[in-house]
């Protein structure tokens, strides 16, 4: 059996007194894609953001329960959020490249970490952009602003930017919902390429997308994890009535 890289036990999250996550138990083994689906407002983003501690930035958030990354408590007082976020990268709904060149965007994390070797930086830029399947489109204008790219290209540059710091887990929060269908399918193809090397957790409200790319799918509703299983079981043969209703479009 493969080792679980990330485990969540009895995770509760409160925004003030509002309970947004009501005791989530969910584990991820290494590599592969897990999709988080569920009606809007059910807590998918909230859950995803507990995994790299992005919720720390919001005032009045209380979190109880345990999240372990490779056996270490993510919320231990000694845990280093900066280091955690290097190992657990995140891609957002809205492409958010920095207002710098494509090249600088990709190596920003490394450069700030102190890497100066030009050859190594060049190599990382090429490798990351290739992995993100955007190299051929941008290789001739690496030193132009990333903001001049299309939304889909920007999003793939953002993926490359995350890959460049060599994370083990990549979190994506509806990465294609702001993109056109062609760009969306390019992102999907990119993720399918990456699933052999990274543990990928993606929030999507697009059920077809989940069924196309995810090895495993978790269905959330009202702050609870209703069901998690191999994607084809969730879509063909869900164990839970609520899952079935959601999949067949009866609500949400």
């Amino acid at each position, binding site marked *: 059996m493969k080792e679980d890289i990330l485990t969540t036990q009895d995770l509760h999250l409160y925004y003030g007194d509002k309970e947004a996550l009501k005791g989530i138990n969910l584990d991820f083994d290494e590599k592969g894609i897990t999709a988080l689906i569920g009606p809007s407002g059910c807590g998918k983003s909230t859950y995803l953001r507990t995994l790299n501690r*992005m919720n720390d930035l919001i005032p009045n958030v209380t979190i109880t329960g345990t999240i372990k990354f490779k056996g270490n408590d993510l919320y231990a007082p000694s845990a280093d959020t900066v280091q955690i976020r290097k190992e657990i990268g995140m891609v957002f709904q809205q492409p958010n490249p920095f207002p710098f060149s494509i090249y600088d965007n990709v190596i920003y994390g490394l450069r700030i970490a102190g890497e100066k070797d030009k050859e190594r930086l060049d190599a990382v830029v090429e490798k990351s952009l290739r992995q993100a399947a955007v190299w051929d489109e941008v290789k001739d204008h690496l030193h132009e602003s990333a903001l001049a790219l299309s939304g889909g290209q920007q999003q793939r540059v953002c993926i490359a930017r995350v890959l460049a710091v060599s994370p083990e887990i990549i979190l994506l929060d509806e990465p294609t919902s702001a993109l056109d269908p062609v760009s969306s399918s390019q992102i999907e193809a990119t993720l399918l390429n990456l699933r052999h090397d990274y543990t990928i957790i993606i929030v999507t409200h697009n059920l077809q997308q989940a069924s196309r790319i995810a090895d495993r799918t978790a269905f959330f509703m009202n702050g609870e994890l209703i069901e998690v299983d191999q994607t084809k079981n969730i879509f063909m043969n869900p164990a839970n009535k609520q899952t079935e209703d959601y999949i067949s479009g009866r609500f949400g």
Partner: protein
Amino acid sequence: MNSKTQNKVAIGSLYGIAGLVVLILLALLGYILVSGVPQLSWHFLTAPGKAFLKGGGVGIQLFNSFYLLILAMLISFPIALGAAIYLYEYAKDNWLTTTIRTAIEILSSLPSVVVGLFGFLFFVVKLHLGFSILSGAFALTFFNLPLLTRSIEDSLRTVSDVQREGGLALGLSRWETVTRVILPAAVPSILTGVILSAGRVFGEAAALIYTAGQSAPALNFTDWNPFNISSPLNPMRPAETLAVHIWKINSEGIMPDAKAISSGSSAVLVIAILLFNFAARYLGKRLYKRLTSA
């Protein structure tokens, strides 16, 4: 009256008011430039003033204005930058930050003559700095700090939060995110704010009358040792600026060509401030373009 005509009347009167404002502005500028520009010459811009005779220039005042501006900016920019970063990027909403914000708000609405009097009592008298460049620079700092802090805070606000999240999610620390992502992205807007506030400082008179003083002793422009009394760089010498000069000539000038010198000085002041404004817009736009596009 139906809502359509109402709408038309409203828009019409707004256009009217806007037009009136523009007209007044143009008339003022036109008057100052038309009466001032003919007085301008290289001699006028570089020669020292004459108290009783005609033919004096404003060279020393012009130098003083720039020197004070630079000193005031050197002191106030780092403080304002730090304060703005703290307030916008770090501070939580609590009584302390509310107090700071209120203080900034009040400071920025103080009449500059009050700032000048405070500067006189505190720097000139209490700290024994006398009527000097240094007293003036400190007074200008007090005058400039609240405005500059707010303008830098506004610049930071223009950088979207998705950039902050992007930096943090990439494993940058808070500080790295601020200094390496947010600040560079805000530079064009910060620069614009700095130059615009430089324009305000450059034209300021009331805060300087009792701090930097109203006399412009002769300077020796070959002596750049700041410890010598006639050196232009000496920060302890009194230094009348262009704006103060205009005020002074008009209230007590006794040279025969006072009117002409006053007009010429006003034109120089207005032109300098206009240049600041255009420079701010131009540089801000160019920097932003360089950062954001091909």
